[in-house]
Every structure is written in C-alpha cells, then in structure tokens.
C-alpha cells in the first residue's frame, strides 16, 4: 500500500517533471492525399528523431482534403493549442482563417514557425522564421536559367487560369528572363484542360507552330512538361521544355534529354528545418539570422538529375 503510494507519487512527479522541461510541438500540414506533403512528412519524421533524442515530442497533423481547407486548418490549430503544445509549425494557406487562430495561439505563449506558404503574412502571425520558397523568386530563377541557356522567347504555361500563385510564378519567369534578355509570353489553358496531357499537348503544339520564335517553355504544372515534350516530338521543333515541380517521369525525361529542367522547392528541407529549428528555438534558444530561409528554387537539370533520383528513391525529393 505504502509502496504503491510512493510509486504513484514518484510517477506523477516524474510526469510533471517531464512536462515542465519537455518541449511538445505540433506540425500542421496539408491533405493526406497530396504527394507533395509526403516529402514534407519525410523531413518532419527525420527531425522528430532529433527532437525525441532531446526529450521533446512531435505531433504531425494533416487535413483530410482541401475541400474545407480554412476551417479544417483552424480546427487543427485549436486542437494543438488545447493539447498544450509549446510550438506550432505551420504553412499559411488561408490567411483570413488562420491568422486570428494563430494570433490567439501566440497570445498563450505558443511559438509559431512558418513553412512552405504565406511569406507575406509572416509578421502578422509573429512567426520565428519562414522555411519555404517564394513563387516569384522560383519563377525568376527559372526564367533566368532558361535565358542563360540561350532561350530568346519563353512560353509560360498556366494550367488553372486566375490562380494567384501560378500568376506569380509566370511573373517571376517574365522578370527573370527579361533581365537576362529574353521575352516571355504567358499562356493560360482553359480549366477543362487541367490534367489532360493530350489536350494540353495539342494546345502547346498550336502555340509552337503559331509563333516560330518560341524556343523554350516552362509549365506551372508537372504534367505540362509531359505535354510540352509531346508537342516538341510532334512538331520536331527545337524547344527547351521545363516545368515547376517534378515527378519520377520528369526526372526520366531530364535524363533522356527531352526535358531541360524542373524547378524544385525542396519540401523535405521545409519539413525538416521547420520542425528541428522550432524545437531548437524552444529548447536551446537558437535562432537563424537569415530570415526568411528560402529552400527554392533548386534547378534540376542533366547535371544533378542522378542525385535527385537517388533522393527520390528515399522519399526525400
């Protein structure tokens, strides 16, 4: 009886002690259906080893889908707050919904680390730092790369007309290419061709034939590169094909030379750095002086495609 009591007291004391020094963090991410998020998760998982080795815990929370995205994210934030976490790592996709919830969390002394999205609202949520890419910068890097490779007239393909992040990408491409002396034309294909490789390939073919000064293209979607490569094969024209994001198939095309390059934002780094740096800030008080930290653009071309393939095999690229 006495022994039990002592043990219980000791256990409670131990629990409270760990509660006082352990840093518990929540990492909130996008849909379980989104493959991009799997690469972020790989980074979070790897960082979790470091967190656990130092006595902390990581909770990884994802929404089911993107149908009710804003409210779903707020639910996850409130869930994390209710569980008494010390820090939250989160992208800001829906500022209107997320900012009030994150501000409320910050008022309770919870540290926020931002990754992947929402750089312009970083100060509104008092985030420690930002790990991610900037659509405009990514486009700028891609446009500059193509112009430096000799492109004179670049077609920038948008697969969902009116999507602001895609417009930003093409704006970046335009500025990056213009600076290096090339011209850019933006082509938005109707939304009913989104994901339709054949329909998009034929549309790109028409553009390539219609303007013979076009010597390069960059699509905002990975499937756009498959379509572009097909249009080039059909017309036999000499056009550099490239795209934002990539898949195993585009890596094969880069190896085979039918695609020039892909613009990557390295999601693994975003998950890994946001998790580990949030924890390190809570536990050790470290802070990176570079702010924001851009994980992209990283250009994948023939020179580094084999290394990327190896990384993709391991689920990190």
């Amino acid at each position, binding site marked *: 009886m006495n022994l039990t009591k002592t043990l219980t007291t000791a256990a409670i004391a131990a629990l409270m002690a760990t509660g006082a020094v352990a840093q518990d963090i929540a990492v909130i991410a996008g849909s379980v259906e989104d*493959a991009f998020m799997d690469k972020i998760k790989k980074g979070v998982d790897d960082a979790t080893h470091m967190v656990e080795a130092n006595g902390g815990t990581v909770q990884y929370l994802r929404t089911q889908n993107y149908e009710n995205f804003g409210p779903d994210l707020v639910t996850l934030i409130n869930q994390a707050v209710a569980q008494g976490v010390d820090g939250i790592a989160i992208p800001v996709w829906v500022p209107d919904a997320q900012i009030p919830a994150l501000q409320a969390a910050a008022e309770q002394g919870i540290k926020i680390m931002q990754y992947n999205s929402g750089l312009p609202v970083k100060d509104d949520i008092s985030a420690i730092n930002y790990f991610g890419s900037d659509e405009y910068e990514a486009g700028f890097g891609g446009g500059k790369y193509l112009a430096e490779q000799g492109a004179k007239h670049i077609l920038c393909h948008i697969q969902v007309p009116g999507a602001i992040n895609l417009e930003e990408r093409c704006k970046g491409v335009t500025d990056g290419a213009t600076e290096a002396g090339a011209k850019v034309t933006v082509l938005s294909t*109707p939304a009913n061709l989104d*994901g339709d490789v*054949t*329909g998009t390939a*034929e*549309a790109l073919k028409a553009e390539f034939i219609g303007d013979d000064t076009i010597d390069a293209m960059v699509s905002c979607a990975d499937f756009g590169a498959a379509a572009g490569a097909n249009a080039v094969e059909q017309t036999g024209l000499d056009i550099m094909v490239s795209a934002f994001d990539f898949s*195993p*198939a585009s890596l094969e095309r880069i190896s085979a030379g039918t695609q020039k390059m892909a613009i990557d934002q390295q999601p693994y780094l975003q998950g890994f750095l946001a998790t580990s740096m949030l924890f390190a800030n809570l536990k050790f008080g470290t802070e990176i002086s570079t702010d924001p930290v851009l994980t992209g653009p990283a250009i994948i071309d023939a020179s580094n495609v084999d290394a990327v393939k190896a990384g993709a095999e391991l689920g990190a690229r």
Partner: protein
Amino acid sequence: MASETTNTSDLADTLGKLIRRPEFGTLIGTVVVYIFFASLGGAVFLGAPGWSAFLTMAAEVGIIALPVGLLMIAGELDISVGAVVPAAALTTALVSGHYDMPTWYGVFAGLAVGVCVGFVNGQLVTRTSIPSLIITIGTMFGTMGLTLGFTVMIAGSTGVFMTPDPSAKALLGSSINFMFRATIFWWLGFAGLIYFFLHVSPWGNWIFALGGDRESARNAGIPVARTTIGLYMLSGFAAAFVGVSQVLTFGSAQVAAGQAFIFNSIMCVVIGGVLLTGGAGSVIGIVLGTLTFAIVNQGIFFSGIDPNYGSIIIGALLLIAVMSNDSFRNLALSYATKKKAG
C-alpha cells in the same frame, strides 16, 4: 411528266429526311465551328497540325463519349470514367513499369480495372434505386482513393514511370507523321462497332427502350439488368482504354489526371444531340458532337483569340448546341405532322 414529279418529290423527300435526322443540327454546328476557326486559324489550322490537334483530342474524349452516350440514351450517367482513366493508367504503369512485367500484362490489367469498375457500377445501379449519378460519383471517389492508396503504397509516389515495349507502343501509343495519334483510328473503329451495335443490331432498340421507359422495357422482355451492366462495363473499358493508351504514349501515369474527361465526355454527348433524359440520340451525332467540341477546344489556340476567353466559347457552344438540337427536333416533329396532315 409523272416521273419528273416523282423525282422532285424524291429529292424533297430525301432533303426532308436529311433535315429530320437528329444529327442534322449537330452537323451544321460542326461545319460552322470548323469554318469559323479555319477563317481565323488559316493555313496552319487547315493543314496537318490543325487536323491532328483536334482529331487527337477528339479521339480520346470520343472513345469515352461513345459508351457514355449509350448510357445516356439508356437514361443513365457515368461519372466514374474520370477516375477510371488514371486508375487504368497507373495499373498498367505499376504492373509493367514498377514490377517490370511484359507490357501486355499491364495493358490487360489496366483494361480489367475499367471493366471491374463498370461491373460494380452496373450491379449497384440495377440492384438499388439510387440514381446512377450518385452511384457513379460514389464509385468515382472510391476508385480515386484506391488508386491513390495503392500507388503510394506500392510505388511510394503519385506518379509511375514505364517504358512500353515497341509492339504495344506501336499499336496504342504511336503517331503517324509524329502528329496523328493511333487513338484516332481506334476511335473511328469503336464508332463503327458501336454504330452497328446501336443502329443495326437488335440490342440497339433495347437501349432506346431502356431510356424511354424502363418498366415497359422490362415488361417487353428486355433483359434490363444485363443490358445496363453491359453498358457500364463498356464505358469502364473505354475509359480504361484511354488511360492505357495515354500511359503508352507518354510513358508515365499520374494519380491526378482524368477529371477533365467527366464533363468533357458528357458535353460531347449533349452537343451530339443525345437527350439528357434518355431515349434519343445517335452514334453519328455523338461523333460529330465530339468533333465540334474538339475543334472549339483546339481551334482557340490556332485562332489568336485570347485563350482566357476559351471557356466562354465552350460554354456558349454547349448552350447553343442544346438549343439548336431542341429546335431541330421540334422542326422535325412538326414537319412530320404537317406531312401527315397534308
């Protein structure tokens, strides 16, 4: 003199018959749309690049639109085709790419997936009283989830790569002159077969009867359940065929593809004069509707019209097509009545 009168009335009769054919409105639509874009697109649109562009697009949508049209004539819808396209493509890529088995095994497995989804659709539609729209939305999500889950579990990513062997690629994924895709010929072949099926063979009347009145069809001794299940299996097969031919052409399959086919195929069928409520429609109409749809979709890129406005033209075309189909149908009906009265 008597014979002369007969000749004139024969001619009038033929013309009248032609105009009264349900496809006539669609044919006018196709011609008008072609002339419109030809006048803007010029030599490039009139030449091989233009024809190959809209024929290639028409072939893929068209292969799916044919059985979807048959289902609509029978009074049913199939939304699940949008999920079957990537499901079949990924099955083929997984079997022949990831597991490195012969291409034909993958092709067969991909097609089997489509037939299975069709079979499930057919069973659910005939065994429950739930509208087929709802059932096939359900099976669409189910198929999407299974595709995503299995692909990520097996391949660890949402895109799978494969190198098809030359004989399979030649048959399903090759192009003539780099432009005219093999699917165009498959589409025309399918159209011929389905034309025979719907308009020549006795089964065709069963389908029309199903769309007209299911109860009476059953009472007349038509095997309603078997016919419906068969039609769903056919549309599953057709969607899978498109998915398989895509993976053989492009050498890769993605989880998030195919959604475009749902509305695009229904649109082709409706432009082709098939009655949304079932009971009326024709294969020639569906083929012409598909051509019209593809000409508009691709013509925009040849014409110099800002593609941002492309969707407006597609939407307007759909409405105009349905309205003109309706007025042609009325015209045809009133013409026939007048003739009878005279």
